[in-house]
């Protein structure tokens, strides 16, 4: 550790952000131990899902407002991200430094992130400081300052981050991919903004975002840990009770996938090229989502068990990292993947990947492949529920995806029910690669630009 801790697997080199989000969206898993989920509705009518666990003096809370960077004002991408960086920079009667010091004194942890469709907050507090910590949270949500001097400081940080992203092949390939796939749709805009847009964002923009997007009708809440239903009810009213009833969000169009395959190369002077690929996938509410999820596991989602890992890494040593995933957004489904390989091996690696996807589209999976996938997906179920923070993340994701409070009980049955015929049908639909988009950052060989 003096220098490096090297893991054997590294599946998420590219598009780290989408993958991180995905881990929440992935299917929930039920521990065999009865885990009781309570639906708590406060006096003011605010709903949260609760799992009590009094074995540690910790409360983990996760909640999200629908909205996210797709609600950024026209021409000003980056507002939601900017807000996420400013919520703990002063609120109520505390300026930025006082707020930060108070968080530290209470040992509360508050982490805000903006994704395409949500602004999510992960909050942890110790039982002994719960009341005061929640008061800070309430202030952050209802009376953030967004002082000009603090905004300038965070702006500088965002701009530095964009400057670094510009030279980062992982981020470059991912940004180019979203741009090619979604064009002028909000999903095609960079969530962290651009140098121009971030420079132009004002405190008024930040206040405007909060006013329109922090409300009770677009809020989902999960709580896990050392709190009972009555206490949580009171906490909900004190933290969220003063938020406006209704959000004022603009509609986001459904993405219509069209067009022909595209390949774009961004020349970057690196020894290894980073490749992003993807095409239309399925949204979470698609009835075929579960079969698609199983299929993805076998093709590229299952680490060392996946076909892509076998073909690209295990048999040929062409990459350390090769993977696929389903990335269901609210208004588009994506099937995506990536590989990072020495420049001279890009053509060969991509050919292998395309061939595997074609095979899957044609043949689906064998009975044995399906059975093994089910063994893993059903058996690894409980691994998602071994910390309060992980349970809270699952409870929130299930609410955001509208899967129902009994989803955890149903989930393994839905996996088990999938047949090879289901897989074959879905594979044909999913893996056709009609609108395959590939972006490469590096100095790749064996590939040329297509369809631009």
């Amino acid at each position, binding site marked *: 550790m003096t220098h490096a801790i090297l893991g054997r697997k590294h599946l998420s080199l590219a598009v780290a952000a989408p993958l991180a989000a995905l881990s929440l969206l992935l299917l929930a898993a039920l521990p065999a*131990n009865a885990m009781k989920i309570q639906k708590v509705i406060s006096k003011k009518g605010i709903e949260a899902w609760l799992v009590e666990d009094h074995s540690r003096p910790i409360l983990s809370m996760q909640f999200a407002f629908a909205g996210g960077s797709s609600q950024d004002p026209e021409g000003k991408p980056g507002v939601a991200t900017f807000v996420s960086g400013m919520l703990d920079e002063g609120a109520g009667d505390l300026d*930025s430094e006082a707020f930060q010091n108070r968080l530290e004194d209470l040992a509360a942890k508050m*982490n805000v992130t903006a994704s395409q469709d949500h602004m999510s907050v992960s909050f942890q507090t110790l039982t002994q400081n719960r009341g005061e910590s929640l008061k800070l949270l309430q202030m952050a949500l209802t009376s953030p300052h967004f002082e000009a001097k603090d905004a300038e400081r965070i702006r500088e940080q965002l701009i530095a981050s964009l400057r670094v*992203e510009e030279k980062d092949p992982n981020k470059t390939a991912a940004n180019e991919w979203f741009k090619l796939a979604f064009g002028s749709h909000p999903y095609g805009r960079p969530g962290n903004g651009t140098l121009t847009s971030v420079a132009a964002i004002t405190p008024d923009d930040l206040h405007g975002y909060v006013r329109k997007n922090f409300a009770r009708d677009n809020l989902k809440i999960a709580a896990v840990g050392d709190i009972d239903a009555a206490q949580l009810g009171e906490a909900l009213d004190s933290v969220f009770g003063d938020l406006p009833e209704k959000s004022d969000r603009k509609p986001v169009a459904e993405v219509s996938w069209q067009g022909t395959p595209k390949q774009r190369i961004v020349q970057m002077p690196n020894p290894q090229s980073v490749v992003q690929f993807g095409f239309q996938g399925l949204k979470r509410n698609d009835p075929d989502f579960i079969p698609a999820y199983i299929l993805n596991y076998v093709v590229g989602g299952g680490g060392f068990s996946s076909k892509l890992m076998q073909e690209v890494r295990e048999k040929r040593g062409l990459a350390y990292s090769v993977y696929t995933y389903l990335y269901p957004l609210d208004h588009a489904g994506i099937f995506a993947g990536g590989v990072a390989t*020495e420049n001279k091996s890009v053509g060969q690696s991509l050919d292998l990947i395309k061939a595997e996807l074609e095979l899957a589209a044609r043949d689906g999976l064998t009975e044995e492949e399906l059975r093994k996938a089910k063994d893993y997906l059903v058996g690894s179920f409980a691994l998602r529920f071994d910390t309060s923070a992980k349970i809270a993340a699952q409870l929130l994701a299930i609410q955001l995806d509208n899967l129902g409070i009994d989803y955890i009980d149903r989930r393994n049955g839905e996996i088990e029910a999938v047949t090879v015929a289901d897989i074959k049908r879905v594979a044909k639909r999913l893996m056709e690669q009609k609108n395959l988009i590939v972006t490469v950052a590096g100095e790749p060989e064996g590939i040329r630009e297509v369809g631009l």
Partner: protein
Amino acid sequence: MLQLKSLRTPPYSNPSRSGTLLKVQLLGALLMTLALSPADAAQPPAPSQLAFHGKLDNGLEVVVVPDRRAPVVTHMVWYRVGGADEPQGKSGIAHFLEHLMFKGTDKIAPGEFSKIVAGLGGQDNAFTAQDITSYFQRVAKEKLPQVMEMESDRMANLRLDEKEVLTERKVILEERRSRVDNDPGSLLQEQMMAAMYVAHPYHTPVIGWETEMRKLSRADALAFYKKFYAPNNAVLVVTGDVEPDEVMALAKATYGKIPANPEVGGPRVRPTEPEPLAERRVILRDGRVGKATFERYYLTPSSTTAPPGEAEALQILARIIGSSATSRVYNALVRDEKTASSASAWYSGMALDTGRFGFYAIAAGDAKLEDIEASMDRVIDEVIRNGVTPEELERAKTGEIANLIYASDSQQSLAHTYGWNLATGRTIEDVESRQERLNAVTREQVQAVAAKYLDRKRSVTGYLIPVPSGLAKVQPRAGGDAATFH
């Protein structure tokens, strides 16, 4: 404050900022009874503890930490060997062997290990550092016997096919490209470590130097395996929904069958790093740098080698001087002078032989790294001259102790903490008295370690400087459906 995930400084090279392995040092059952207030917590905690500690006749140490909230277990084997134990000219072999451990035994075909674990509904992985190599599986509790059988099998019965070895060698070279060669920030850190250690093998990156990696062979891997992989050079850690008795019985039936290797298990003696005499500077100019970046490392002791209280004082010092949005360096460079867009400090004390104290800042606008460095030095001098305030000390202790409680929520964190400590010369008691020791730190101690270790003679300063060549070229296109971007 933003969580700058996209900014450089990969977690594996600056553990103290990673929030993963090293930050998470924790106590066992003590946590449950902890009061947060340092005053209360200073009372001696009850001797009861969650961690069970046993040893097999063949020397394998066993640690069990029950956590019955979910019916799952984390099973880890930690070998007391890592990159710093490699023979001259064979850099990367410890990590290469870790990859090859998945290539089969008499009972398990090449590449099948992870597939079998997946078939059990489990997840597995492994990682290598300078002092340790660790393998783990996470499974439903009833699958524990199977993974113990498999892990113990490969402790003694690895079989390597020449072709598999050569293919995997390409994989580790790709891994090096991903982690280091594609990333000028990593390259700078690699060069800084090489400049820091004059004699000690921490000089050499765990991933290896590319020229040496290209020559690593099957014979090299097997020689390393035979020399270091043995029950008396390992620690077994199981956390989760288990009973210590049950784990001990399973361990005897599996790992217990493997004979000890008399050649290992004694003190780990590496070349001693001499007292540093001269400050060093490393400058990397690269067209792939997005923002000018400043880094500095100081050579310090680790938790294992520090005189009593010093490692804890260094941890508290790091928190006060640079671990929050109101820390000394953040306030000076980011809030007041506005020369940096982010600034932080960290202490990494988890190694066997030495530790490091580090500073990190990214330039704001066109600020010069020289100015950032001068500000950092002013902050450091101020702490050395006048120490820290009582409020800062209390706040830092509160934060460090709360982190121990938060980490107790995760059986994986627990397994890492116990495993890492026991594999690098520390004891269960060290792990479980950490909260007490942090509490005992005084302002005088914090000032004293600052004066003793934040001495320029002990340091390497790194500058990462952007140069105009090598800009990414995205050709503007006519038509297409792309939105305006940048």
